[in-house]
C-alpha cells in the first residue's frame, strides 16, 4: 500500500494535478460538496423530511439578509415552510446517492457486457452490440422519462415514495449502460491482441480469469475518463426527472424538485426557492465536469507525449 502511494505521488498524474490550478480548485470544491452531502443530517439546521418540524406558516420567508428574513432560515424557506439550506443539503445528498448509484449500475452492466463482447467477439459480440445499438439510438432521457411516467401511472404516487431512490438509480442506470459497453469493448479489442493476453492463454488461464484479472485493469483508464461525465449526466438526469415531477416525490425533495416547486414563484419576486438550488446544482455538476476534462487531458495518450 505504501509503495503504491509512493508511486502515485511520483506519477505524472499527480504531478500535472498539482500544476493545474483549475483541477485543484475543482477537486477541493468537489470534496466540500461530498462532505456536505454525507454529513447532511449532521450539519443541517433542520431535517426537511421530518414533517413534524415543518410549519406551513413559515413558507416563503426570504433569505436572512432581507428585512423580512430571519436568521433561523439562512437562505429562506420554500413553499412548504422547509428551511432552504437544509433542504438543499439533503437534496444534494440524494443527487450524490442517485448519481453514484446509477453510475455503478451502468458501469457494472456496461463493463460486463463490453468485456464479454470485446473479448469473445463473433456472435456474442454481434448480439450484445446489437442490443446496445438499439438502446443507444434512444436518447437516455426519453427512456428514463418514459419509464418513470409509466411507473407513476402504474403504482400511483403513494408507494412511489419509498421506492423513489432505488427506482431512480435503476432507471438512470439502465438507460446509459451502452456508453460503458461500447467504450470498454473498443478498449478490450485493442488489448486482446497484445502479448500479455497470449501469454496468459498459453499458461492456461480460463477465459473469465483472463478477462477480469488481466485485460480489465488495462482498460480502466477509458472507464475513468467517461465516468465523470456519466456521473454529471446522472445527476442532471435525476434533476430533470424531479423537475418534471417524475423523480423524487415532494416530501423528499431533491435539488430538481426544489427548482420545480420554486419555479412558479419567480414571477412574483420569490426567487430564492429556485435560484439557490439551481446555482448549487450547476456548481456541483460544473466541478465534476472540470475534473473530468482535466482527467481526460491527462490520461489521453495522444497528448501525453507532448
Amino acid at each position, binding site marked *: 500500500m505504501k509503495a503504491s502511494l509512493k508511486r502515485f505521488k511520483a506519477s505524472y498524474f499527480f504531478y500535472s494535478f498539482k500544476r493545474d490550478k483549475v483541477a485543484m480548485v475543482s477537486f477541493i470544491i468537489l470534496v466540500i460538496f461530498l462532505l456536505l452531502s454525507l454529513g447532511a443530517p449532521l450539519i443541517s439546521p433542520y431535517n426537511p423530511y421530518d414533517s413534524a418540524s415543518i410549519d406551513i406558516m413559515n413558507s416563503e420567508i426570504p433569505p436572512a439578509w432581507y428585512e423580512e428574513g430571519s436568521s433561523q432560515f439562512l437562505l429562506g424557506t420554500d413553499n412548504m415552510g422547509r428551511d432552504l439550506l437544509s433542504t438543499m443539503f439533503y437534496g444534494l445528498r440524494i443527487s450524490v446517492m442517485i448519481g453514484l448509484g446509477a453510475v455503478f449500475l451502468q458501469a457494472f452492466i456496461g463493463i460486463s457486457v463490453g468485456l464479454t463482447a470485446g473479448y469473445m467477439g463473433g456472435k456474442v459480440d454481434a448480439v450484445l452490440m*446489437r442490443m446496445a445499438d*438499439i438502446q443507444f*439510438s*434512444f*436518447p437516455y*432521457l*426519453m427512456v428514463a*422519462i*418514459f419509464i418513470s*411516467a*409509466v411507473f*407513476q*401511472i*402504474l403504482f400511483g404516487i403513494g408507494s412511489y415514495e419509498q421506492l423513489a431512490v432505488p427506482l431512480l438509480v435503476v432507471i438512470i442506470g439502465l438507460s446509459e449502460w451502452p456508453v460503458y459497453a461500447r467504450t470498454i469493448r473498443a478498449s478490450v479489442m485493442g488489448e486482446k491482441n497484445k502479448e500479455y493476453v497470449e501469454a496468459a492463454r498459453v499458461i492456461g488461464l480460463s477465459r473469465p480469469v483472463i478477462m477480469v484479472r488481466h485485460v480489465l485493469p488495462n482498460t480502466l483508464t477509458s472507464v475513468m475518463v467517461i465516468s465523470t461525465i456519466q456521473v*454529471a449526466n446522472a445527476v*442532471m438526469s435525476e*434533476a*430533470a426527472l424531479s*423537475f*418534471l*415531477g*417524475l423523480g423524487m416525490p415532494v416530501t423528499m425533495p431533491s435539488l430538481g424538485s426544489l*427548482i420545480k416547486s420554486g*419555479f412558479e414563484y*419567480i*414571477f412574483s419576486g420569490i*426567487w430564492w426557492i*429556485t*435560484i439557490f438550488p*439551481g446555482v448549487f*446544482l*450547476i456548481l456541483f*455538476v*460544473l466541478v*465534476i*465536469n*472540470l475534473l473530468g*476534462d482535466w482527467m481526460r487531458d491527462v490520461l489521453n495518450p495522444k497528448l501525453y507525449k507532448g
Partner: protein
Amino acid sequence: MFAFIVRRITQAIFVMLIISMVGFAIKNKIGDPVRDLVGERVTPEERAQIRDRLGLNDPFAAQYIRFLKNVTKGDLGQSFFYKKPALDVIVGKAPATLELVFGAALIIILISMPLGIYTALKPQSTLSRFIMGFSTLGVSMPVFLTAIMLIYIFGVNLHWLPSYGRGDTVDLFGNGWWQTGFLTLDGLEHLILPCVSLASIMLPLFIRLIRSEMMEVLETEYIKYAWAKGLSPMRIWLVHAFKNTLLPVVTVFGVQIGIMFAFTILTETVFQWQGMGYMFLEAVERSDISLLIAYLIVVGSVFVMVNTLVDILYGFINPTVRIAGRK
C-alpha cells in the same frame, strides 16, 4: 452496399416492432380503452358489454395484431382527454415543437461553426479559453435550469423578452394546421428564449466537436501539403480543413436532432409551449395512456427513421471519401 441497406432497414423494422410491442403491452395492462371511448360514467354491465364488443377479452397476440393493423391505418387509439384520435392530437401539436427544434438547430449551426473553427485555429487565445470555459458551463447546466435562468434574467428582471407561450402566430398553409411564430415579430420574440435554451444543450457539444475534428484535420499530411503549395491561410482553413471537418460533424448533427426532441419535453414545460412535449406531460398527469403510447410510437418511429437514414447516408459517404491522411 445494397446488403448493408437491407440489413439496416430490417434492423429498423425490428426495433419499431419492439417499440410497438412494448407500447401495446403497457397500453393493454394499464390503459383503459373503455374509459377512453365512453368516459367514466358507465355501469359495470355496460362496461363488460363494451369490453366484449371491443374484443378486449381476446388473447394478447390477437389484440396485438389488431393494434398493429390499426397503426398502419393511422389509428393510434383515442385520447381520453381530448376525445379525439390520438394521432390527430399529436399532429396538431407537432408544428409548435418542430418550430422550436428548427429555431434551435439554426442557432446551433450559426454559432457553433464560427466558434468551433476559431477555437481550433487559435486554441490558446483568451477568447478561445473563454469560449471553452463557457461551453463547459453550458454542459453543466441542465436545459431546464438554463431556461429558468434565461426567463429570470430576461423576462422577470429585464423585461426584454416574454416568458411563456408562443405569442402571435400566423396560419402558414391556410388550413389552420400549421400556426407559425416565425412570421410575426411577437412570435419571434417568443421563440428566442425557448430556442436558445434548447440550443444550449447541443451548442457546447458542437463547438467542441468541430474544434477537435478540425484540430485533427489540421495535423494531417494533406493540410501540410497545402501549406507547402503556398495556398493562402484562409483557403486552407476555410476550404480544405473545414470541408473535411464537416463530414463527421454532419452525421452527428443528424442524430442529435432526434435527441433534441427528447429535450423539448423539458423546454416546453418551462415555457408552457403548446407542443408535443408539453402534451406528453399533461398526458402523464391525466393518465391518458393512449396518448402516451401514441407519442411513444410516433417519436420512436421518427427516431428510428432518422437514425437509419443517417447510418445509410454515412455508409454512402464513407467508403469513397475515406478520411485518409491522418497521422
